[in-house]
């Protein structure tokens, strides 16, 4: 009897531990800046995973040029970047979206990112109008045949509510039309791309910098394919600024690094972003 109770208790422990893990829903804000505040040679950056390749490249180059500066870069997502910089846990918070709730944060736009609508190749669709996109993501159009494609059911893949990419897609395409909740939800750009690659009928939206390799069809919107020149000229409208937020005005090394990121237009281009200086339109022109 004793032994059995002990076994039961052990299993109970496993169960409790897994529930406790699931319960830890607060984003970690505990990494205190402590000695690593701005100006003393160490810069901590976290946030948007879409920006990660660019910021990593830039930090490596910056550290080569400035041997006394150390930069630590990590991801976590746009909202995490904003939350951590607002809590003074990091020096720079990377984000695909603005931070209207945090008046203490100073916004630095460092680049422009384009977003692509991607489908599984078997859908057989190369171009969609904005209205068709709206209807697909609202759940009104349900088969690819209705928009000139294969006789296949449409499977919408969304990002979670908190995603910066989703926010941009809603703003530029959906407007006030609500997204259908009937589709799948995947929580990272990489996961979305691999699900779309493998699952017939899927359609989703991802940062252009996240579409590497083949296996998915990039759909033109109103006849315009997403590319640097169509985004710069304003013909293609699904794009947004990439932001680096600081808590209060940026000073010293932090300010220098932010300028450096937006200044290295070669790195910006290499990672499939667009330099702000190349943009012929502003966000308000859309």
């Amino acid at each position, binding site marked *: *009897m004793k032994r059995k109770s002990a076994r*039961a208790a052990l299993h109970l422990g496993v*169960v409790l531990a897994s529930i406790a893990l699931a319960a830890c*829903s*607060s984003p970690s804000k505990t990494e205190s800046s402590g000695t690593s505040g701005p100006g003393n040679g160490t810069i901590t950056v976290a946030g948007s995973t879409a920006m990660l390749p660019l910021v990593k490249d830039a930090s490596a180059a910056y550290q080569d040029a400035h041997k006394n500066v150390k930069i630590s870069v990590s991801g976590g997502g746009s909202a995490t970047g904003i939350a951590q910089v607002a809590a003074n846990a990091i020096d720079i918070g990377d984000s695909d979206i603005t931070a209207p709730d945090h008046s203490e944060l100073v916004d630095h736009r460092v680049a422009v990112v384009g977003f692509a609508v991607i489908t599984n190749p078997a859908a057989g669709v190369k171009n969609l109008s904005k209205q068709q996109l709206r209807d697909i993501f609202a759940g009104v159009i349900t088969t690819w045949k209705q928009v000139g494609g294969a006789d296949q059911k449409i499977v919408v893949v969304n990002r979670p509510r*908190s995603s910066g990419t989703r926010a941009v897609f809603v703003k530029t395409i959906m407007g006030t039309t609500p997204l259908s909740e009937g589709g*799948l939800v*995947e929580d990272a750009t990489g996961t979305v791309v691999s699900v779309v690659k493998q699952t017939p009928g899927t359609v989703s939206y991802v940062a252009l910098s996240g579409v590497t390799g083949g296996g998915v069809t990039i759909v033109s919107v109103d006849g315009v394919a997403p590319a640097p020149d169509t985004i710069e000229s304003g013909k293609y409208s699904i794009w947004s600024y990439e932001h680096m937020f600081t808590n209060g005005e940026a000073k010293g090394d932090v300010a220098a690094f932010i300028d450096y990121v937006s200044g290295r237009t070669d790195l910006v281009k290499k990672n499939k972003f667009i330099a702000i200086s190349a943009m012929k339109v502003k966000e308000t022109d859309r």
Partner: protein
Amino acid sequence: MIALQARRSRRTERIAVLGLRVAAGFVILAMAALLGYLAFEGTKTFYVDKFPLWSFLFSPEFAPDANHPGAAVFVTGTVAVTVFAIAIGGPFGIAVGIFLAEIAPYRMTQILKPAIEVLVGIPSVVYGWLGLTLLVPLIRTHTSSPSGFGLAAAGIVLAIMILPTVITLSEDAFRSLPGSLKEGSLALGATRWQTITRVLLPSASSGLAVALILGIARAVGETLAIQMVIGNATQFPKGLFAPTAALTTEIVTDMPGATAGSLLEHALFSMALLLLLIAMVLIVLVRFALRRRT
């Protein structure tokens, strides 16, 4: 000399007892802190944001942006995948438990038991990954489900994950029965099948109940593996193969973007608190079943 030795061993004992007390106290402290913090954060939805508990539990509309975080979809999802998992994993696990305790030759149990223990040790992300790469395409090609993600995929993955718990606990339940029960039944001329179904099974019922309840508890709390295959759609399961979401999967999907102090964060904490309450109810049930047996 002897007195000195005695004094020294008494001191060692005092220190050891103190150390054990501190360890036990720390566990209680950690539990209390966890409970207190979850209770504090998890009720903010109701007393800070003034969202009624009733709507939280029973409203299917989860729209934190519009100040309406109804969690009924996720509660239903959790119940649905758990029922699915226990409906498959429960009978199967108990059957294997009977086999191990009553039928399998000694050699076979020596191989099977470590194999089952290995199943416990596999991280849930591996189960999820296998579900994603094997099960989801299988469901996609053999059913009307266009994507393959959904309730059935999550339920099957969970059924496999709870098997080791159900198997080991139900085996224990049979092994702990007094040998005289079995001997008496066989001596009266009952076949092995009759002995198992009419004598052993009813006698082990409370132990089997514990096995099933802990299997349920594991299913309710599992997160990562089912998040990868359930589809995470905020909608009631429209069928066995339709995508839906559970309490745990919703927490992990939306938590990266839950800004501190937002209604979304409060709602996720409320779901975490709800999970903890479910776990506590299940633990009370286990205690109850164990007591009935003694």
